[in-house]
């Protein structure tokens, strides 16, 4: 078996296959990165909606809570299927890539909203009160006092979420998006040995993820030192 494996290697690592794999890898990174960026923007607003107070803001608060909890408590695969079939039923002719992009953004918003909320709540209530008595509006409180202080608590967990999100995008393979996992299945179906194929895919995910993980740890240490 090992002999046949060794024999396969030159057949596997052809120029064409490598390009194929690299493109798939790029799609994986693209899905995760764009998902997290859009997820950050929407998650941010969802978190602000969540911390608003007062009766008139109740519907926004409830919407935010429900949205966030939904996408955090439903598995990626199920959300993906839901988005896929709803788009299909509504006759929106989106490509599988678009569908997975939508899914990825929705899920990322849910998780990042919670991270941002935790960051906002980490700011001592006395900062809110001091801004209150100086007659700041909610927007001014958030913009001038709360968010600048919440940043530090938000950035590291968001990056760490991005890291784990790269692995979650593997499930987008199930609707046919040609990302890294799907490319593995394609090559496996072509007849290459599973150990070779999926071993390579695993290593490629590792090459993407591990350096980013190290960068994340370095970033955390830098943040712990500097404060402003």
């Amino acid at each position, binding site marked *: 078996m090992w002999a046949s494996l060794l024999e396969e290697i030159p057949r596997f690592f052809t120029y064409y296959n490598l390009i194929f794999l690299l493109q798939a890898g790029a799609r994986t990174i693209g899905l995760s990165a764009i998902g997290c960026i859009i997820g950050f923007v929407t998650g941010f607003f969802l978190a602000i909606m969540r911390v608003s107070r007062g009766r008139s803001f109740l519907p926004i608060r409830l919407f935010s809570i429900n949205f966030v909890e939904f996408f955090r408590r439903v598995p990626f695969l199920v959300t993906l299927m839901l988005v896929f079939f709803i788009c299909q039923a509504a006759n929106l002719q989106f490509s599988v890539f678009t569908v997975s992009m939508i899914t990825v953004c929705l899920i990322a918003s849910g998780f990042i909203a919670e991270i941002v909320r935790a960051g906002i709540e980490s700011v001592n209530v006395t900062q809110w009160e001091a801004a209150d008595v*100086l*007659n700041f509006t909610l927007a001014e409180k958030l913009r001038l006092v709360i968010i600048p202080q919440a940043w530090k608590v938000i950035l590291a967990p968001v990056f760490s979420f991005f890291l784990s999100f790269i692995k979650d995008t593997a499930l987008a393979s199930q609707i046919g998006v040609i990302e890294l996992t799907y490319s593995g299945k394609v090559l496996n179906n072509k007849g290459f040995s599973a150990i070779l194929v999926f071993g390579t895919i695993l290593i490629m995910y590792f090459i993407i993820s591990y350096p980013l993980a190290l960068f994340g740890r370095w970033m955390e240490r830098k943040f712990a030192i500097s404060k402003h």
Partner: protein
Amino acid sequence: MLFLVGGWRENLPYLSIENVVASYKDDIPVLAGVGFSIEKGEIVSLIGPSGSGKSTLLRVLVGLTKPKSGRVVIDGVPIGYANKKVLREARDRFAIVFQQYNLFQNMTALRNVTVAPLKVKKRNPREVEKEAIALLEKVGLGDKLHAYPDELSGGQQQRVAIARALALKPDILLLDEITSALDPERINEVLDTIRILAKEGITMLIISHEMAFVREVSSKVVFMDEGKIVEIGRPEEILDHPKTTRARDFMAKILRH
């Protein structure tokens, strides 16, 4: 007729607190009907054991805690704490300095002082900055304009908080135990600042445990216990010759150390 009306108005206290009731968790009343008045330029000190409701009263005045019943009247006009617009106007007239200074951690001392006049009152930036620098110099921090709160000592932070409160030119300054969180060496630098303000005739409501200081600056002392006012009088009366047993017990405990 007009003269009479004018004269009548002059006799109204500047700030009148009438029978204020407030509580945090519905059943436990922290303030059980508190009322007294402050004249313009008066310095009133609130003393009493912890938990007597002194801080709560200040929080009610500045709108951080909603009173269940009672009235607060400034210059003849009652403050409607439920109404947001009126609340903002009320907050314009009060400025509060907290026990824990509550400086904005992400801003320098100068910015802490200028942010409210600039962003909330939207005044001219150059004027605001000049005034802020003058205020910080007055409290003795002219050389720390660009320091962040975590680079300042407790006493310095407290003085920035005072400058920040004064930047909005309040009618009444509320001081909530501003020396209680400070190291003993730092207390005097803050008290000196208050002494300067006292001389300038700013109306103040002070909560303090520093009895010597209370005696020195106050025109009136209010002794509170368990959410009620027990005694009101001139400093010498309350501090040296308290009439009620509770006041006497309290003074005995304070003076022991």
